[in-house]
């Protein structure tokens, strides 16, 4: 399946782009992270410390074990600092 993968804040800066289309068979967010981290050193560095990374699947907050079946959009970003 093809997923739109989005990055925000310092993850976007470290990876060097705001979004990319990824062809994947990943069953969970964790599997997708492994695939992305293996792509190049920038992805690997941005996703090295997952305690500093939050995830949304189809614009809903999710955890690393969230399933990706049927998903269209996955976003990675740091802990939020609104308000």
């Amino acid at each position: 399946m093809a997923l739109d993968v989005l990055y925000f804040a310092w993850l976007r800066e470290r990876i060097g782009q705001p979004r990319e289309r990824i062809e994947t068979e990943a069953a969970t967010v964790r599997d997708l992270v492994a695939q992305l981290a293996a792509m190049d050193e920038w992805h690997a560095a941005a996703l090295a410390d997952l305690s500093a990374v939050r995830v949304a699947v189809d614009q809903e907050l999710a955890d690393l074990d969230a399933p990706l079946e049927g998903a269209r959009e996955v976003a990675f970003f740091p802990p939020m600092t609104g308000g």
Partner: protein
Amino acid sequence: MAARVQSAPFDLAAELAGFGAGSGAVVTFTGLVRDEGGRLVALEIEHYPGMTEKALQAYGEQAAQRFALDGWRIVHRHGRLAVGEPIMMVATAARHRAAAFQAAEYLMDWLKSRAPFWKREIGPDGAGVWVDARAEDEDALSRWQG
């Protein structure tokens, strides 16, 4: 009963015109860009278009249900904001003040830690530093859970 995300400034008086008519209590909170003792000249706020609006709407509806609000409003800005500019506002309307105050705090606690915004501090030299999430904000949120 509305959430909005925009780069333009907002006019608090205009936002509140007619808001809460018929209720006994209206509480508003406005967040401004701090100068941090001269360390900051501006904030840059990034957000996740699409998810942000949905999240704010969902938190507003949760607050309305939990505190039996007659009305609520959230406006949050993004982009570059100079020191002293308003960042965001929440307004809540309820029959009595306790519910209106509590709902405003509830909304602030949720959107500080769960709405997809990220702040970058811009110093006098133009360099930007991403703001780290604060453990106190996460603690503040936990009091509403469970």
